[in-house]
């Protein structure tokens, strides 16, 4: 979670939510959260576990491209 926050500090284009999902059954369902930590980037790019910096970066870049492709 801290890494995602640091991405938000670095880039004006990145925003980051940390979600303690217990009270949010709707979000847990919507993003199919079973194992944690689970990171969802954009709406479709996701991974489970605490990845290193370059892993989050790859997913962020991928999400930026995916969403570019849909508009």
């Amino acid at each position: 979670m801290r890494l995602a926050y640091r991405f938000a500090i670095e880039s004006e284009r990145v925003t980051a939510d940390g979600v303690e999902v217990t009270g949010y059954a709707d979000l847990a369902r919507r993003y199919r959260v079973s194992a944690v930590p689970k990171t969802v980037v954009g709406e479709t790019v996701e991974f489970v576990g605490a990845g290193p910096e370059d892993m989050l970066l790859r997913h962020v870049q991928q999400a930026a491209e995916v969403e570019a492709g849909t508009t």
Partner: protein
Amino acid sequence: MALIRDDVAAQLKAEFESLQNPVRLVVFSQTMADPESEQVRRLVEELAALDDRLTAEPVNFVLDQERVAQLGIARTPAVAILGAEKDYGIRFYGLPSGYEFGTLVDAVLDVSSGDSGLSEPTRTALAGLARPVHVQVFSTPT
């Protein structure tokens, strides 16, 4: 009764001595629909009381729609961790307990410094992002 234990408060005070810039913790709660959010408000107020550079700004999620919209808050409990002048887009949703309380503290420290601490290649890559990207990290209490 205090939500932050005395020994933890003392540790945090020491840690906050390294704060560089003010940090605003805007906390959204609604008493009736979400009693847990009141607990988060109290926790954030206790946290902010530990250092002069920290401010807690309680917002009523139901009544202050303008602030809710301005900071893009969709649900409670929510905490927006803002720099003195800048909103980095950092939010915490839910009850920051256990390990996630530490995450909230880390967010305060990082926002205060305004430095991501990321590696040069990551910084360069992020500078080249063509579009806004929203990251959500889901956790459960530990």
